[in-house]
């Protein structure tokens, strides 16, 4: 495989072409059911995303950071993880949670901040679950990266075979935390995979203004390990590149920086208006590279899928989501004093006092 980049750019690694044909030599070993599961996850993520956009517009859920267009990068990479591996996402990774097996009911409980919200209504737009080995993102960009490295170093110290994967955007690579963390990972050969979704924008800031390099992948040079540039709209390429990096990390051969080159089709968040900073034509161009359509073409070409299957799948998913939305919306809201929960393991006297005072006002 020609995936490594040291110092110069050769072109992003790709397996599925736009028309759905494939580079047979590089096809990963995946069973049909695995591939169909990946496809299903991508579609589910897309439909859920579009529901969350609408629900937000209707004022029924809070802010949402859409993942439309980035499903291949997230689902492809997350499908390589074993149950012992840990995920340190950012705020745009619902497709990762789905691939990791998180039920959408839980994601919806989160978005509706109902009494079953696993984060107790304490933060927006992020998700985490100890059961699924997902550590919720801190909203400040890039901040989760050192945490993933520390986790990986600890796993290594314990002789465990767990690998940590952390997700972040192109904008995050400009932060000091990205640098300090990758440098640590290089020095300590931590079993960690840095998965950068270069969706070409940090809100309005285009990639060309974010850094002077042509790729993110080549930044790995500065840390003494491998950088990989991959077509982020090609789910199999993302799967293969990540699988290789995860296995390498598990073997004790250290970290990898993967850049999945992709595009955010939607706004930055529901609060954003992308027409202020980019042309409609550009978005349209990228719609043609839609990762779901491409994977579908691939599956159909190989006789693994049909338009009928697809229609059925969409219908089924749509029903499912609607049902879960209804359920989530019907659940009780969080109690007011939840704002005093989870500050410390045991409540210090000053918080007990404040909670008492608080209870007089609700």
């Amino acid at each position, binding site marked *: 495989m020609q995936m490594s980049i040291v110092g110069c750019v050769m072109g992003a690694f790709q397996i599925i072409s736009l028309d759905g044909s494939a580079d047979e030599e590089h096809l990963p070993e995946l069973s049909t059911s695995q591939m169909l599961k990946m496809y299903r996850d991508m579609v589910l993520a897309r439909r859920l995303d579009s529901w969350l956009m609408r629900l937000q517009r209707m004022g029924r859920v*809070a*802010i949402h950071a859409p993942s439309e267009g980035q499903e291949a990068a997230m689902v492809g990479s997350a499908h390589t993880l074993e149950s012992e591996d840990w995920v340190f996402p950012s705020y745009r990774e619902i497709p990762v949670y789905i691939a990791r097996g998180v039920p959408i009911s839980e994601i919806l409980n989160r978005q509706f*901040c109902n009494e079953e919200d696993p984060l107790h*209504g*304490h*933060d*927006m*737009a992020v998700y985490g679950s100890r059961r699924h080995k997902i550590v919720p993102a*801190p*909203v*400040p*960009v*890039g901040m989760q990266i050192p945490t993933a490295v520390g986790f990986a170093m600890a796993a290594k110290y314990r002789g465990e075979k767990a690998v940590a994967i952390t997700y972040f955007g192109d*904008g*995050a690579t*400009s*932060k*000091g935390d990205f640098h300090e963390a990758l440098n640590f990972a290089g020095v300590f050969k931590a079993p960690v995979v840095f998965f950068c979704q270069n969706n070409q924008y*940090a*809100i*309005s*800031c285009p990639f060309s*203004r*974010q*850094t002077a390099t042509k790729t993110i992948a080549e930044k790995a040079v500065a840390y003494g390990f491998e950088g990989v540039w991959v077509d982020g709209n090609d789910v199999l390429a993302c799967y293969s590149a990540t699988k290789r990096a995860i296995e390498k990390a598990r073997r004790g051969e250290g970290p990898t920086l993967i850049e999945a080159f992709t595009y955010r089709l939607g706004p930055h968040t529901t*609060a*954003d208006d992308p027409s*202020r*900073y980019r042309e409609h034509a550009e978005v349209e161009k990228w719609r043609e590279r839609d990762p779901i359509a491409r994977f579908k073409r691939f599956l159909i070409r190989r006789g693994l899928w049909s338009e009928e299957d697809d229609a059925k799948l969409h219908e089924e998913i749509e029903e499912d989501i609607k049902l879960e939305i209804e359920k989530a919306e019907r659940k009780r*809201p*969080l109690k*007011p004093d*939840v*704002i*005093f929960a989870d*500050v410390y393991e045991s409540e210090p006297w*000053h*918080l007990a006092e*404040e*909670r008492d005072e*608080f209870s*007089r*006002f*609700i």
Partner: protein
Amino acid sequence: MAVISLAQAINQALREEMRRDDRVIVMGEDVGRRGGVFLCTEGLYEEFGPDRVIDTPLAESAIVGVALGMAIYGLRPVAEIQFADFIYGGFDQIVSNIAKIRYRSGGQFSAPLVIRAPYGGGVKGGLHHSQSPEAYFIHTAGLKVVIPSTPYDAKGLLISAIRDEDPVIFFEPKRIYRSVKGEVPEGDYTVPIGVSRLVREGSDVSLITYGAMVYECEAAAEKAEKEGISVEVLDLRSLLPFDGEAIIKTVRKTGRPIIVHEAPKICGFGAEIAAFIAEREILSLQSPIIRVAGYDTPFPLVHEHLYLPNERRILDAIKRAVSF
């Protein structure tokens, strides 16, 4: 006179000052084409171009650190931090470098720059889009800290901040960016840093506050008035240096100071005001010095209206003060 919003007043201050003084440049994330996520820099990119309205990479430490270099050169950078919650990424540069450059260099160099950031809660922003971090900066010698609450003050104080020879942390109460409107003269005027504004006179209780809380205090004062309690409201506007004289004056007048702010109580700025009073005006006190503040938890997404000091809590404090 035009009636404009607080956000528009900020925009006007920047625009006019950039027209007057080509040393003034604006920089930060999304401040250019996007016009800032709250549109405070809207139109500046179009008028002044990319050399003076600089969209930066996503890096708060560099944003303020680079601004310092520009200030040392002789420019007057106005750096925007997209939300005050993200200013911590630049904390080291602000506290260790910017605040101390004059001192460190024996007065040879200084940092005439402004760091603007929307701050405070009430916009359903959750943990990392709602914080009020002013106390961290008030505790840092070498900085000035300013928080306007009206469009008029926002413009006048921002112009003062840009012209100030020392670094000014300028926090803007985002919750009232659009909701609060007021008369703002076009053209050049300043509001001096260090001087408070008496929002409302009263004789029984003093509410000492700033930012969006000014409006909660006014509402509570009005309610109290109806119950026969006369409440004075002082908008500090500048937190470092703060207007000690005005604080003493109102405490002498009412004897019952209540300090109101959004930030968590422990070691918040309310502590300083209380300590200041307790050190100088103990004989004037007719009641304990009460603080109504954010609770000492991280800022929650849900129930933020209950987390934030509100009319009800302030009124309760007023009653406790007068019935002491």
